[in-house]
């Protein structure tokens, strides 16, 4: 039975299968990269002249912070695709992103605080980058809360898509206002110090970790995407073969 509206969805059976085959590749590659990055970051990289070995927290803090922001971007663009071109696959991707994004925003905050403690003597300082990540966490919580508020999946998809897009437009505004607020109040800001021209043997592990985390996210996203596709495909006939 050919349902015309099916093609508009970006042929889920096709995407479901591709997601299945790609996941292990991403997973193994991510695992390998992370292990190599761990070894080179913790063992090979020289200690920082100022923070000593403490700076190595960077190798988990920076990738988590990057993931938190990048995932929101992926979520918002997928939501836009779902809302504007009415493609359910967009909503499925957006729904798959939110949980992981929120988790890694929390991780970036925790690792940021553990890094800040030896530096500033307290776990929390209103550093602009940490503050912006905290607000980002509330954006994720708002998104998850809104999505949970609807029983009907299609309404939940579209409402949360509007929020994701509005949130995404506001992220640069929030980041600018927090930086502006920080500059006029001279709150301590250490995060910048760790990033400038790092020697290659310090930088290489970071880049590997960033790529490893991104591939890890891709693997988790694809697994969740398959779940979200099944939830949205209701009684599509192709599901029968897949589930056999």
């Amino acid at each position, binding site marked *: 039975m050919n349902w015309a509206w099916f093609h508009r969805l970006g042929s889920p059976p096709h995407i479901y299968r591709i997601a299945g085959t790609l996941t292990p590749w991403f997973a193994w590659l991510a695992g390998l990269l992370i292990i190599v990055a761990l070894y080179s970051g913790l063992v090979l990289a020289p200690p920082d002249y100022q923070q000593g070995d403490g700076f190595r927290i960077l190798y988990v803090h920076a990738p988590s912070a990057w993931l938190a922001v990048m995932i929101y971007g992926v979520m918002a663009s997928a939501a836009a695709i779902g*809302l504007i071109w009415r493609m359910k696959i967009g909503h499925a991707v957006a729904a798959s992103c939110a949980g992981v994004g929120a988790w890694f925003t929390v991780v970036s905050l925790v690792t940021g605080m553990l890094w800040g403690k030896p530096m500033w003597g307290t776990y929390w300082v209103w550093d602009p980058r940490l503050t912006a990540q905290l*607000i980002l966490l*509330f*954006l994720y*919580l*708002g998104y998850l*809360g*809104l999505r949970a*508020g*609807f029983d*009907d999946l299609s*309404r939940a998809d*579209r*409402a949360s898509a*509007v*929020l994701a*897009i*509005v*949130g995404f*437009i*506001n992220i640069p*505004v*929030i980041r*600018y*206002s*927090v930086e*502006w*607020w920080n500059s*006029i109040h001279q709150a301590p800001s250490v995060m910048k110090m760790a990033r400038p021209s790092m020697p290659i043997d310090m930088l290489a592990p970071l880049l590997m970790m960033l790529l490893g985390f991104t591939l890890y996210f891709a693997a988790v996203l694809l697994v969740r995407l398959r779940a979200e596709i099944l939830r949205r495909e209701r009684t599509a006939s192709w599901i029968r073969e897949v589930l056999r």
Partner: protein
Amino acid sequence: MSAQRTSTMTAVWLVLQRDLRLATRRPAQLIQPLAFFAVVTLLFPLGYTPELSKLRAVAPGVLWVGALLASMLALESLFREDAGDGTLEQFVVSGQPLVALMGAKTAAHWLLTGLPLTLMAPVLAIALGVSVAAMPGILLSLAIGTVSLSLLGAVGAGLTLGVRRGGVLLALLTLPLAVPVLIFGAKATELAIAGESLTGPLYLLGALAVLGVTLAPIAAAAAVRIGLE
């Protein structure tokens, strides 16, 4: 059969008039946000210190957080009553651009809450030891800031329309987005109190309001359509 069709501008004016007239029929609802703003401000001298010099230092934050929470309070009813009695649906199928009607409802909300809150702020500012000279700056910054709050709130109210107990969620969605308004607004008020020029933050507040005016009604319209399904 079809006489001369109402223009969008007339429809917007009609919606604005309707909401204002509705508010006059139930004045109690108008006073609640103002009372809430006063109570919140009153808590600080009691909870912190009666010393005017110290209160003056925290006055910007108190005024803006109070105004923010008070305007949040009034958002719940922005769409929920109209959705309940079926009139909001008529907006969607009226043939008039829903974005424009959402703009009208948000403008009515600002006139009924944002503006009164702004006009009341000087009285509370005096209670926090702020000199009269700072009043123009406070009025101006709050006037512009509350416009953005109403616009952001309209999006939040629209999104939580389809959610049963949407009240708390409405605040959770709207407050993070209102952070820039709070930062620039509080700074503008602080400069006003210090007697310095506040054009910098005022321009930023103005920019936020313009961003809000262009985007928020579009998002609110989309949100309301989904909420009414």
